[in-house]
């Protein structure tokens, strides 16, 4: 199953961390193997924020192999050295959990491909997200557990997307959890509900074009597919419209950038989505109860039709 939720405030900021937590927790019956947040916080836009994973959560239910915490320390040191070699400077660092790093980085290049490739060439290291506003936080457990573990409820921003996962196609681990970063594009993230049936064909084609996959989760394909379209010059909306025929299977997915939030639904309309739209706020989720957690009053909602693509700006 899996549940997805997203919201975008237009003309103002809000406590999107707490709001998304409420929406995803309302969907926890759709899956609580892992939960992920892609939060677009208010920043001064000067530095990049990188969320880097240097190990897996090997707690109860995890399909990952346990590693000694000392391995994480060694990896962190290699990552720090590598960032220096790339001519970047770590301005601020947080290590909420032994395997999770949050860095604010001064880096004057716009293209993040070289940076990402270099960092991810370190075994066991993955950049979960990188951008001037985006932070992807994902871990095992339901929305409330992940929110508390990473102190997300105070995060203020304009928009956010998230995912409550029931693992079906790949393991119970952080690398297979959503959201996926639109590597190597700054501030692009994707969440998906459904199943893609032409994953391996598309993956082979995209890998031949130099695109990178970090997991064997079919949903990662959407992020990579859109990133490749954008690298070829398409706008986000154009890439999303092409995905309706380029991706086979059943899907409803959300994609977010620094300034926008979009949704796409497959031509069979096989996966649910309920949408609320007003001048100030767009909120959507797999079920209406997700929207009700931020808008308990009586509101007008609707199901987007088959093959529909929509994009909203902040």
């Amino acid at each position, binding site marked *: 199953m899996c549940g997805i939720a997203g919201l975008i405030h237009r003309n103002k900021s809000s406590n999107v961390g707490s709001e998304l937590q409420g929406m995803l927790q309302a969907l926890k019956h759709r899956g609580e193997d892992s939960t992920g947040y892609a939060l677009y916080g208010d920043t001064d836009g000067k530095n990049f924020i990188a969320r880097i994973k240097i190990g897996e959560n090997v707690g109860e239910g995890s399909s990952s192999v346990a590693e000694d915490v000392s391995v994480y320390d060694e990896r962190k040191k290699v990552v720090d050295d590598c960032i220096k070699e790339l001519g970047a400077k770590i301005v601020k660092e947080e290590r909420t959990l032994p395997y999770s790093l949050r860095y604010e980085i001064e880096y004057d290049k716009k293209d993040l491909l070289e940076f990402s490739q270099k960092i991810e060439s370190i075994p066991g290291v993955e950049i979960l997200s990188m951008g001037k506003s985006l932070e992807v936080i994902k871990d095992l457990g339901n929305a409330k557990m992940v929110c508390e573990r990473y102190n997300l409820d105070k995060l203020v921003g304009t928009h956010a997307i998230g995912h409550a996962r029931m693992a079906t196609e790949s393991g119970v681990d952080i690398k297979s959890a959503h959201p996926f970063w639109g590597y190597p594009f700054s501030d692009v993230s994707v969440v998906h509900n459904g199943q893609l049936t032409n994953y391996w064909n598309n993956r082979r084609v995209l890998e031949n074009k130099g695109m990178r996959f970090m997991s064997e989760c079919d949903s990662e394909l959407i992020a990579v597919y859109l990133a490749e379209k954008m690298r070829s010059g398409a706008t986000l909306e154009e890439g999303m419209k092409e995905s309706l025929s380029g991706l086979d299977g059943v899907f409803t997915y959300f994609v977010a950038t620094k300034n926008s939030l979009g949704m796409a639904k497959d031509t069979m309309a096989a996966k649910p989505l309920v949408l609320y739209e007003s001048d100030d706020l767009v909120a959507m989720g797999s079920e*209406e109860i997700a929207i009700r957690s931020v808008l308990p009053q009586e509101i007008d909602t609707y199901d987007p039709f088959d093959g529909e693509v929509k994009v909203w700006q902040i």
Partner: protein
Amino acid sequence: MANLKNVTKKTKAQEMGMHSEVLTGRTQQKFFNPDEAENFYYFGTYDVDFNKRTDLDVKDMTAAEANKKIDGLMSEGYGTIVIKNPQGKHSLGVGILNKLNLIFEGSLGYFGIGSCDGPVVRINGRVGWSCAENLMAGKVVIEKNAGSCFGAAIRGGDLICKGSVGARTGIDMKGGTIIIGGDAGAFTGFMMQRGRIIILGDVGINLGDSMYDGTIFIGGEIGSYGSDAVPSELTKSDQDWLKRKLKVAEIGANFDVSKMTKVVAGKKLWNYDNLEPTEKKGAI
């Protein structure tokens, strides 16, 4: 279990002319004799008084608690129940097997009003997926929009949505009438076997795909026809029926039914196995 193949007893259904083929095995059909009415008890039903009215706030209840409470109120004879603050909860108002006026002040989640037989339900908000699934009799009116699989497998009753609905409306329906005031998504009437669907607005792709029987009336544009769904002549009696039905449904008061498209089954798929190979190709 022995000698089942040798059982060729003529069933009541055959005696009534419902089918002529001789079936083997034991029948599970039950027939009701009106003379023995007092010996029958329809489990889970209540005699209610429509003038006995009450409110029920379900804000802090689970779906199971709310449904149990509704059942309790019916057992006390309440015939008109107003549900406050449903707030998109799933599976509310299910399994009601007697007459009842049930009013929801707000929206429902998935599987609302499922497996009901007899109540008149009005929902002032929207409903999620699979509203009124398996409805046997009664009337359900939704004032706003509805999700996908609206009226899945209904066997009777009237199901009315004044807004728009998602995909697969009336999937596998076996009777009854579904009326939509707005648009409908893809695969409307997918595998329907009997009954009628009226859509006043546009409808998505694959309309009536693999329908066995039944009739669909469309007021707006059709995305595309599904396998074996074909347009048919809209007769005078069709138009009279549509006018009557829309009036009863309090919907489309000034709608011009004469311009609607009538869609029926081409009946090439339902006996697919009997077709010649060349005919099969044409049927798909």
